[in-house]
């Protein structure tokens, strides 16, 4: 049993070794072989001519992100609810109470989100 597991894990060790090797190798190669960018000028969008001006920081709407995070939240909520629903009869009242506590906390969180105005699009 012991040896079997050891043999089973040999490829993993090899793979791990390879991935670490590459992860180290590639940055090192690009650092040593890659062209050196000397002056800060070379990094500017236009090497000659006008210096780039203007606001580098622009506003980025976060409402899409908020909705996406809310989606994840409900998604995970369902992941936790489904196993309970499947074993509902087996778990009985204990499961009901446990899930009630969980749902109360979850709904409090939703209320918080709602009240904070996250759900408003504009």
């Amino acid at each position, binding site marked *: 049993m012991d040896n079997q597991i050891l043999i089973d894990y040999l490829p*993993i060790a090899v793979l791990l070794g*390879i*991935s670490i090797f590459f992860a180290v190798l590639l940055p090192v190669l690009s650092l040593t072989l890659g062209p050196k960018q000397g002056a800060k000028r070379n990094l500017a969008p236009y090497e000659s001519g006008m210096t780039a001006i203007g606001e580098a*920081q622009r506003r980025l709407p976060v409402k899409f992100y908020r909705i996406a995070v809310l989606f994840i939240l409900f998604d995970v909520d369902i992941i936790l609810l489904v*196993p309970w629903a499947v074993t509902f009869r087996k778990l009985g009242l204990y499961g009901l109470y446990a899930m009630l506590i969980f749902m109360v906390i979850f709904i409090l969180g939703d209320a918080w989100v709602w009240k904070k105005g996250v759900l408003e699009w504009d």
Partner: protein
Amino acid sequence: MIPLSWYLLVAAALFSIGLYGVLARRNAVAILMGVELMLNAVNINLVAFWRYGRFPEQPVGLAWAVFVLTVAAAEAAVGLALIISIYRHRDSVVAEEMDTLKN
């Protein structure tokens, strides 16, 4: 039946890919994806160990995979919020460019 070691191999491969992603990618989002791959590799391991384990009547591995998913979601939410916040101020999510903290 497919032997357990195959699942473990897939999981280890996934973990290594994730590890590689974290170490080699420069984009913070890609690093985060690498971390998620690592956590998913763990999930494969957990479910496989449960199915082939000594106590298949106790679904510990299954229950646990659910928790790992939950935590991964929470981490992703926080991480993406940080990334967006940085992107708004800097127009960049490249991890290497975050280098103001040096002495």
